[in-house]
């Protein structure tokens, strides 16, 4: 299979070069090269255990790679972390929030942590809580939030300081359809305003609706990447995905006892 050549952008929002990560004996990420063009809506697809979370963690400075480079808007994440980290917003998956704070307190915390002016934090936090229907006066602790509300407050925290690049790990997992539509709308607006979104998912429908670019990750390597049209061709994204990733889709004679 020929891998479509991506249009080379002079200054990609996120550039990964030869990223490798090994856990004990297992090679989780086996050399990833990837350019995310500025202004794109980039979907990182892959089956469970493909290395999506590991790759994104290394890209944003949460996990030190064994080899390779990650550059955010031409700032090296591992050589100049302060400059790189100032330009991104991150919604990690499988990571707890500071959940003994209320949603409002958590937003204020993130805003001040990013060095924002307190008045700006007040204004933006109130607006975000209102738009995401979390309630600015709500004093429930985040630990008592539902899974969908946790995703929404996490997203709000990632966007509060208006970063140029958003890195979201599974932003639509456990989110109800209404909230998902709302999040999609917010992200579309963000991209049309010049921002770049990278998100991981294994839900094809969401990726097909949103993304301008996709990459398919399996077994720790990029199998296919390019614009959505290039990757998909004439077929559905799901067919391409299954063909690239491989694996079993139906049962045979087993499980007769079910």
């Amino acid at each position, binding site marked *: 299979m020929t891998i479509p050549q991506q249009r080379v952008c002079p200054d990609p929002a996120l550039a990964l070069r030869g990223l490798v990560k090994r856990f004990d004996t297992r090679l989780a990420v086996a050399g990833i090269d990837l350019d995310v063009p500025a202004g794109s809506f980039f979907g990182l697809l892959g089956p469970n255990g493909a290395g999506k979370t590991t790759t994104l963690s290394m890209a944003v*400075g949460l996990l030190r790679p064994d080899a390779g480079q990650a550059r955010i808007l031409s700032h090296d994440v591992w050589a100049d972390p302060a400059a790189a980290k100032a330009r991104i917003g991150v919604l990690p998956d499988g990571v707890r929030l500071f959940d003994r704070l209320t949603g409002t307190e958590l937003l204020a915390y993130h805003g001040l942590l990013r060095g924002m002016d307190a008045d700006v934090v007040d204004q933006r936090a109130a607006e975000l809580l209102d738009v995401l229907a979390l309630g600015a006066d709500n004093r429930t602790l985040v630990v008592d939030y539902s899974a969908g509300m946790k995703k929404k407050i996490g997203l709000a925290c990632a966007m509060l300081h208006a970063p140029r690049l958003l890195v979201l790990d599974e932003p639509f997992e456990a989110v109800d359809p209404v909230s998902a539509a709302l999040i999609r709308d917010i992200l579309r607006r963000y991209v049309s305003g010049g921002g770049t979104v990278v998100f991981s998912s294994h839900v094809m429908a969401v990726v097909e609706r949103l993304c301008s670019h996709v990459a398919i990750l399996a077994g720790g390597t990029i199998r296919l990447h390019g614009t959505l049209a290039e990757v998909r061709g004439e077929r559905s994204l799901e067919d391409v995905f299954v063909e690239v990733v491989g694996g079993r889709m139906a049962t045979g004679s087993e499980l007769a006892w079910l």
Partner: protein
Amino acid sequence: MAVGVRHFVKLKLRITANGLRGQTWRVVLFVLGAVLATGAAIGGYALFSLPGLLGEQRAAEVALPLAGGLLMLGWLFLPLVFFGVDESLDPARFALLPLPRRTLIRGLFVASLAGVPAVATFAGTLGMVDSAARLGGPGAAIVAFVGVVTGILLCAAISRSLTSTFATALRSRRARDLATVLLACVAALLGPLQLAALAGAENADWTGLARVADVIAWTPFGAPYSMGLDVAAGRLWAVPVKLALVLATIGLLLWWWSATLERAMLGAVGRSGPRERPESAHKPVAQLVPAWLPRTRFGALTAREMRYWWRETRRRASLITFSVVGVFLPVFIGVSSGSAGAPTGMLIFVGALAAVSLANQFGFEGSAYAANVVAGVPGRLELTSRVAGFSVYVAPTLLVIAVVVGLAVGRPETVPALIGMLAAAYGVGLALVLPISVRMAYALPDTANPFALSSGGGMAKGLLTFAAMLGAAVITVPMQLVAFLAHDVWLWIGLPLGLLYGAGALLLGLRLAGPMLDRRMPELLATVTARQ
């Protein structure tokens, strides 16, 4: 197939072994702990077999129940204060399995015996069997063995049920005040016992001590360890009575434990609904940062720490335990020894104990620390704000401790100097603990029990605590020397000197630990993230 006790034991051992896999320093700590425990066991055996070797029946009747009672007290308090309980078999994990409660309790209980402390205690107390054998022959030895076995069962039952009770009490936010009072009362029990022991030791009043020992021998604390001696003395009738007493106590404790466990298991699945908190009219930043803190990064970090020390059960548990122990221990030592000079050493211990609460500060919040890593918070700022947030609670407590101790020993004029000594010990303790918290953090299990540690964690916590306290004692030696040599001047210069000493040590510690944290933020995040 019926699920037996051995399945639980095997599971516990397997989890312990897997927890050690690939974690070199954990293995080192485990081995170190095992070596120390072996030493303690051998020492205990030698000590307990001594009365038998000497052929002193009366000495044995005094020493063994007293020692046994102390051992039980250790099992009661050490988990609460220092070690935590090894909850590698989290009861909540069994909530969905079709297990009868009796099977579950029996399994968890026996599995809790399959650990280093229990084995070491058991091996040490076997020395009592040796003593009984020499004093009363094989019959006495057999009864003593039965006694020792019931003794270790009682030790485990006490520690399990007590920590479980506190866990339940502290989890419900409404009951936390009650728990504070309860813990204070339990700590207060230490007082009279200590007074009695010290008075006995000071006056060498053997008849008085012997009377105490005779009483203890008839309580569940001493009964398991005096049965064999009763046989040796010909009081055969005492054996069934004491055995019944001990078994009834164990039964009662296990029943109590299983009742609290049931609540804990339910709590893990369907926790009490979100608490209704009144809506706030403040703006977001004002909701987080109190007015007296700057509305900056430092303010946000410190405010978050302050919230966490009160809202998170684990932290609150360690805060409350410290406050109670910190107030009661020096007071009793001071009162019972009678001189004003004595509590100084105790205060250094207390100051360092306060700092030790931060030894695994990154482990408390686990993977939530990722937010600070992503925001790129500098190491110095991170650590400074954490110390500030914790000190908001600890500094007043230390003040109260100094005042209370000064008044209790009847020397109110020493209070400023005592404050100085506490500040120095706290500062030195922090300086020692901050690098430890960066280098040797470990993940805490995600359970509802604030005293729970993953297997091997207890060893780490205990050893680190003692190392930090020893270090604080050594580093504050100059202060102690000045206090000792220049006694009158000390009353005047103690406060400023202590504050300077503590602040200097803290600055050094921050200087050391800050860049260390800058270098290993992602690694720290990985170590405190609980593995699923």
